[in-house]
Each structure stands twice: as structure tokens, then as C-alpha cells.
């Protein structure tokens, strides 16, 4: 049985290339999900960003989109570590990448008390322009198509960030560039 499997998958042309797989996806709960979790230490930021980068490369996102998605992930994880878990290394952060045919949804969850997004100062307000902080979520909202914060019933804060795949493929990069 193993031998048969081996033969099948070693000798068949298994296409690891982007999206071919994603579109064949059916209805299984956790299929197409990658989850990574780690203690609240800033030194893991690079690792998470590299994961985001590998996933968006696999999905064939254009370079700019990959950059901004990676930055959004980085900003969210920074917030989870700093504001959510308050640098308590005993608390964890979970990042989930949900790959579906038409969108990439990224969840970042911490073990903190959460916050009320509607109370955040607007960084574009002239009085806030020179503040040394308070731009992270604004950037995330700019780069992602949909961003939602929620305090979880089981405790902790979760941000859900969605990037749709339409005109985000490399083949559309030219169109993208023109649009910017």
C-alpha cells in the first residue's frame, strides 16, 4: 500500500504550482489552512513574515501585494505581542492563513483583553500627524480588503484580515501598476 502510494506520487506529475490546487478544493473543515503559533517574543516576527511571504508566493500574488500583506501580518503580530499579550512570553499568538480559491484570509489572535477600535485616534487628524505611534492599524486597513477586530468569547482578541484574489495575480501585475 505504501509502495503503491509512493509509486503514484513519486512518478506522477504532482503540480505544486499555485492555485491549480486551490481551485480543486472541496469542503473539508481545515483543508487549506495553515496555522502557526508562538510565544510573545518579537524575535519571531521575521519568521511569521517569512511564512506570509511563502504563502503569498505560492498563491502567486504580485510582489507589491505580497509586500503589503506581509507588512499587515507583521503589524498585527506586533500588536498582538505588544498590546494584546503585553510582552508576556507565557502568552501565545496564533496566526492562521485560510487559503480559498478567491481570497486569502489571515487571522491573528492573542490572549489579551482586546480594545475598542472605534475609540482609536485617527492618525490623519492634523493634531495626530506628529504622534510617534498609532499608524499600524491604519496601514493594515489600507493594504487589506477587509479588516475586522473581535474580542473572542473564549478570551483574547482576534483580527481577521482578508485579501481578495481578483487582480492580485502576477499576470495582472501590469494592471495593478497602472491602477496605483
Amino acid at each position, binding site marked *: 500500500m505504501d509502495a503503491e502510494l509512493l509509486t503514484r506520487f513519486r512518478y506522477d506529475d504532482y503540480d505544486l504550482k499555485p492555485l491549480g490546487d486551490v481551485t480543486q478544493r472541496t469542503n473539508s473543515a481545515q483543508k487549506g489552512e495553515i496555522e502557526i503559533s508562538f510565544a510573545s517574543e518579537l524575535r519571531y*516576527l521575521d519568521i511569521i513574515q517569512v511564512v506570509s511571504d511563502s504563502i503569498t508566493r505560492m498563491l502567486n500574488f504580485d510582489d507589491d501585494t505580497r*509586500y503589503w500583506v506581509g507588512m499587515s501580518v507583521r503589524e498585527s503580530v506586533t500588536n498582538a505581542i505588544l498590546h494584546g499579550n503585553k510582552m508576556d512570553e507565557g502568552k501565545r499568538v496564533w496566526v492562521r492563513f485560510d487559503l480559498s480559491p478567491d481570497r486569502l484570509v489571515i487571522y491573528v489572535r492573542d490572549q489579551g483583553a482586546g480594545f475598542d477600535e472605534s475609540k482609536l485616534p485617527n492618525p*490623519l487628524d492634523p493634531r495626530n500627524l506628529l*504622534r*510617534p*505611534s498609532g*499608524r*499600524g492599524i491604519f*496601514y493594515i486597513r489600507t493594504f487589506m480588503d477587509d479588516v475586522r477586530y473581535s474580542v473572542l468569547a473564549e478570551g483574547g482578541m482576534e483580527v481577521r484580515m482578508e485579501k481578495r484574489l481578483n487582480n492580485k495575480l502576477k499576470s495582472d501585475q501590469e494592471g495593478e501598476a497602472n491602477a496605483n
Partner: protein
Amino acid sequence: MRIDTRTTDGITVLDIHGRITIGEGSVEMRNKLRELLQAGKKDILLNLGDVSYVDSSGIGELVSCYTTVTNQGGRLKLLHLTKKVQELLAITKLLTVFESYEDEKKAIGSFK
């Protein structure tokens, strides 16, 4: 992150190499600016051409540098913004706050 310091026509140019992100570079930049201001060097050009990555915290750090220098009656300008940094500044309406240049000669000249 590494900062190289040089002087051109009386203007201090800081060549920043590497990343300006949460936990990286803030201390170095703060110390360097403090040192310069104490020495009476108040005209400073930040060369960001070799900066590889900036996050929202790094943008905040640039703003801090700007206010620190301005509050002491100095001038801080930016040189060689990467495309990404330019975009980050633009999104948060900071391009109008910072004076920035593509050309070092012009940047130096602008202090005159």
C-alpha cells in the same frame, strides 16, 4: 541597523543601513541625534537609500526624529526614500511634513 555619519558643506548626513522596525534602530537613531544636537549640529539629512525595511514603528521613529530636531531649532530632511517608505509616508499624510530629496546635491543645497 547601522548609521554612518559624514559631513558635506556643513550639513550632517546620516546614512542609515538596514531596518527601522519595532525594536531595531530606535536607540541608535536617538543617541546619534542627541549627540549631534548637543554638539550644535542642527542641520541633518537622513539618507534612507539603503534602508531595507520600515514598519509603522519605524515611520513613527522618523517622526520622532523630526520633532526632536525641529524642537531644538534644527532642520531634518530626508534623502533617497525607497518606494515603499515613500508610500508609507504618503498614506499617513507625512510626505507634506517631511522635506525629501532624490538628489543629494539638491538636498544639501536646500539647507543654504
